């Protein structure tokens, strides 16, 4: 399979702070890549390098076989859906949920392009898939954090991109919504064969269909490989600098943080 994203020796810095140190990674078409690592590891920065929102200090980024340049970056972005980690929305913003989701199609339609019934349909379908059709006329500023997350996901789906970047799409969601969204991501992956890059802290949310796991720490990719090899007690404990327990129940991996055998439950222990 062909390389869809090729990142070579990329460094990113925010003034004197280096967020990515000379990172190289290739992602092939149709891969489901989960990116994990502690806070501040550079996961979000890596995603913004792919869609050109972040500025790189050195190195090259090629997406769809094209080098990202100011002149073609919009062409590339149209084909990449982005579900950002967090987004500030003014509570009084005069934009409805449906309009906020429609933005996903604006880039594809292009300047002076026409908004057609098929665009409308795609927006409605996306709202429906994520389960927020009933909110469509609501001012987007009135949503809860989780509902915002769903709007972002719907926007990315409405865009019908080839790559979707998910930055902690389940943070802020209630348990049922988390489950729904993970199922949805798995479904769109299996149905449409999108290439997906999925950042998460909740290891149990890494789906079965995940093809690669990338471990990041302090601006570096410390390891990468298939999910089975990477989601392993020793590797994870090292990654998070914290004892991690992995147990297998009914053929599914479960992850626990903290010393599992300390006797008392709670306080630092929990499902991850």
């Amino acid at each position: 399979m062909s390389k869809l994203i090729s990142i070579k020796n990329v460094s990113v810095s925010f003034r004197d702070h280096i967020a990515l140190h000379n990172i190289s990674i290739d992602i092939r078409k149709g891969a489901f890549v989960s990116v994990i690592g502690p806070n501040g590891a550079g996961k979000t920065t890596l995603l913004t390098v792919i869609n050109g929102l972040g500025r790189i200090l050195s190195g090259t980024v090629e997406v769809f076989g094209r080098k990202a340049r100011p002149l073609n970056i919009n062409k590339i972005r149209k084909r990449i859906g982005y579900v950002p980690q967090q987004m500030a929305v003014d509570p009084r913003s005069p934009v409805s949920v449906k309009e906020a989701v429609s933005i996903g199609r604006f880039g594809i339609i292009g300047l002076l392009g026409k908004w057609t019934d098929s665009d409308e349909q795609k927006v409605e379908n996306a709202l429906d898939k994520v389960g927020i059709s009933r909110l469509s006329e609501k001012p987007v500023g009135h949503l809860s954090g989780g509902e915002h997350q769903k709007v972002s996901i719907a926007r990315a789906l409405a865009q019908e991109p080839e790559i979707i970047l998910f930055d902690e799409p389940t943070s802020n969601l209630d348990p049922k919504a988390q489950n729904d969204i993970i199922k949805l991501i798995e479904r769109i992956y299996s149905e449409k064969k999108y290439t997906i890059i999925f950042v998460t802290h909740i290891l149990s949310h890494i789906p079965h269909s995940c093809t690669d796991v990338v471990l990041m720490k302090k601006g570096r990719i410390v390891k990468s490989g298939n999910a089975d090899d990477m989601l392993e007690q020793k590797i994870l404990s090292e990654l998070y600098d914290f004892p991690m327990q992995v147990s297998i129940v009914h053929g599914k991996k479960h992850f626990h943080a903290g010393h599992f055998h300390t006797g008392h439950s709670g306080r630092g222990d929990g499902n991850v």
Partner: protein
Amino acid sequence: MQGISILGIQAEGTAMFEIFTYEFVWRAMAASILGGITCGIIGVWVILLNIPFVGIAMSHSAFAGAVFGLLIGVNPLVCSLIFCSIAALAIGPVADRGGVSVNISIGIIFSFVLGLAFLGIGLMKGPRTEALNFLWGSILTVSYNQIVLLCIITLLILILLILFYREIMAVLFNRDIAKASGIPEHIILYVLLFLCGITVTLNINSIGGLLIFSLITSAPLAAYQITYDLKTMYFLSALFAVISCLSGLFVSIFINVPSGALIILVSSMIFAICFVLSPKKKRTKAYGPS
């Protein structure tokens, strides 16, 4: 604020309609309507982009331009337009290249043009009233040429707003989201800022350089209080600004006070009323569970 003896008309007790026989009144009305529409629309951008001080920065750029125009003997309006265009077009790139927010960039540009303006004033000989008049302005003394320019900018703004409504909405909603969707966010933002600059310059003579800031923010803020719909917000903001300008104009005809001040007082009053009546305060009623 030239001493146009409007008071005389009133003293004679002639019908109010007589004022419409004066050409300058028609010009002033045109300036009010066009100025209201342009300030109302760009005000929506200013509020939603959260860059209220762009108005102040632009009017001082225009002022600096006028000062230099007077110094070198070039039409001050032309010089203001040039200064304002350059300043407005610099805001975006300064923010992007410098990695700072648009507001910081506006602050940088503002300090720079203020320095230029003071330098220009320092270099001026004789009384500086002509330059300072620029900061006041009166809607009663708007020239025919200015009306033509205002017509052009109004049309330009309306056409761009209609053609690029979607893209502008996306940029106003969230610049990063707009960018990530493949919208040329930079170009859109730069054009919006540029139009802000031109609008401020062209309305300075009628409303006044210091007061235009207030009109640009209070009209859209009033609209912002009462609607969640962007199209309605554009419409109401323009309407409020036109009402403010027209009522400021007529009151200033009958009692000899500066029109700019009245325009701002009316627009502030509209804002106060909208703020008190705002449904956004009781939104649970308007958008309860369905």
